C-alpha cells in the first residue's frame, strides 16, 4: 500500500503486457474448455450459494416460483446424470436408457422440492467458503461452513468436478461427514432389494413421492 501514484504509473506498461499475455492465452483456448483450478471451484461454490440466497431464498415467493427458480439453478450446477449413476449403483447397468432418463428426472424433482422448501425457512444463514483442493483427476473438494450465530458453524463439503462440457458441476454435498449421495444410494438400493431389483418399482415409488411432496409444497 506504500506505492505512490508515480510508481504505479511506471509499472503500467508491465501490467498491461501481463494482461495482454493472459488474455491471449485465454483466447487461444475455447472459453469453457480450459482446465479449471481449485480456485475456480471455490468461486463456483461461493457464487452458487450467493445465487441461491438472492433468488431462491427471497421472501414472499409463491411456492411454484420458488421451485422453478431452484430447479433452474440445480439443473445448471449439479451433474445429475453422474449423481444418478452413482446413486443407482449396480442397478444403473440393468436399467434401460428410458428408465435411466426417468430416474434422473424423478430424482431431480425430489431434490428440487426438498431443497426449495428448505430455502423457504431461510433465516439469514450465510455460507463461507474456507478452502479448496484437488480431489482425484478432474475433481475438487470445496470446504465451507454455514454460519448462523450464535449456533455453532456447520461444516459443509462440496464435491465438484469438471463435466464433459468443461463447466464445473457439483457431484455431492457432505454435511458434517454425511454424504447426500451415499445416503441416497443406501436408501434406494435397500428399496430396490426389497422389490427384487425391479427399477420400475423404484420409479413408481419415486413418482408417488414427488406427488406427495408437490401436494405438500403447493407446486
Amino acid at each position, binding site marked *: 500500500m506504500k506505492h505512490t501514484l508515480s510508481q504505479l504509473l511506471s509499472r503500467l506498461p508491465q501490467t498491461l503486457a501481463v494482461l495482454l499475455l493472459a488474455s491471449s492465452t485465454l483466447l487461444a483456448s475455447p472459453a469453457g474448455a480450459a482446465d479449471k483450478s481449485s480456485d475456480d471451484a471455490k468461486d463456483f461454490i461461493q457464487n452458487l450459494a450467493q445465487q441461491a440466497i438472492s433468488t431462491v431464498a427471497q421472501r414472499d415467493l409463491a411456492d411454484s416460483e420458488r421451485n422453478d427458480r431452484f430447479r433452474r439453478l440445480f439443473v445448471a450446477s449439479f451433474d445429475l446424470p453422474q449423481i444418478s449413476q452413482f446413486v443407482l*449403483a449396480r442397478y444403473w447397468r440393468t436399467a434401460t436408457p428410458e428408465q435411466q432418463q426417468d430416474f434422473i428426472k424423478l430424482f431431480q424433482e425430489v431434490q428440487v422440492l426438498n431443497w426449495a422448501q428448505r430455502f423457504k425457512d431461510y433465516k439469514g444463514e450465510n455460507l463461507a467458503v474456507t478452502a479448496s483442493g484437488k480431489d482425484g483427476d478432474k475433481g475438487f473438494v470445496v470446504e465451507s461452513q454455514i454460519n448462523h450465530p450464535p449456533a455453532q458453524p456447520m461444516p459443509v463439503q462440496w464435491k465438484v468436478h469438471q463435466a464433459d462440457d468443461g463447466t464445473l458441476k457439483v457431484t455431492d454435498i457432505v454435511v458434517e461427514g454425511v454424504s447426500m449421495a451415499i445416503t441416497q444410494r443406501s*436408501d434406494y438400493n435397500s*428399496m430396490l432389494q426389497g422389490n427384487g431389483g425391479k427399477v420400475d418399482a423404484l420409479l413408481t415409488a419415486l413418482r408417488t413421492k414427488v406427488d406427495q411432496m408437490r401436494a405438500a409444497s403447493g407446486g
Partner: protein
Amino acid sequence: MSKINSTKLVSIAGLVALLALAGCATPPPADDPDAVAEFQQINDPLEPMNRDIFDFNEWLYDNGLTPAAKVYRYVVPRFGRDRVADFLANLKTPVIFINDIFQGNVTRGGVTLLRFVLNSTFGVGGIMDVATPMGIPGHIADVGETLAVWGAGEGFYLVLPLFGPSNLRDGIGLGIESTLDPLSYYLADNHMRWVSTTRFLISGLSAYEAYMDNLEDVKRTSLDYYSALRSLSRQRRDAQIQDAKSGKWAPVDPVKK
C-alpha cells in the same frame, strides 16, 4: 467398578446373542458379488430385529416424544430452549473430558476443560455457552468413541430401544458411560436420584427437539427411512471417530466477521 462393568458386559452379550437368534438377515447368494459386497458394507446382520425395534421407536416417538417436543417448543421460546441445551451440554463436559484423556487427546481435553470453566463462570453455571462464540467450539466424546480410538470396530449395526441407531460397540459404550458420570454418583449418594432421572428425561426431550425437524426431512424425502437413517448415522459416527482419532478439536474455523 470392574465388577459392575463385567456383569453389564455379560448381560449385554447374552441379550445380543438371544436377539441374534431371534432375527437374522438372510445373506444374499454367494454368486451375486455386488449384493454380497453391499450386505457386508451395510453391516446389519440383525436387520429384521433392528427394523422391529425401529418400528417400536417410531411408535414411541410419534405417540410420546414428538407431541412432548411440540409442547416444549410451544411453551418454551427458542432462547429458553437454547439455555436448557447449553446447561445440559455443560453438565456433560466432565464425561467428555474423561473420554478425551482416555483417547490420549490432551488438546481436546484442555479445550473441554477450558469450556467447562468459561461456561460455568461467565456462562452463569453453564446456561450460556460463551466459549463457542469466543472460537472455542465443543465436541463430543463418549465411551463408544474411545473404544473406537483404541481400535475397536463397530461390531454390527444395532437399533437400541428408545436411543435409536447405534452399534454393538457404542451400545456397550453407553452402558459403561452410565457408570462414569461423577455427578450421578454425587446425586445417588445424596438421595437425589430423581435429579438424575429428571436430567435424563429433559436431555432426551431437548436432544429430540433439536433433531426432530431433520428427522422429519429424512422421513419425508426417503423411500426407505430405516436405510436412509442407518446410512446417515453410520457416516456421522465415522466422521466423529475420525475427528477423535486425529485429535482435531475445532470442527470449523471460528466465525469470521
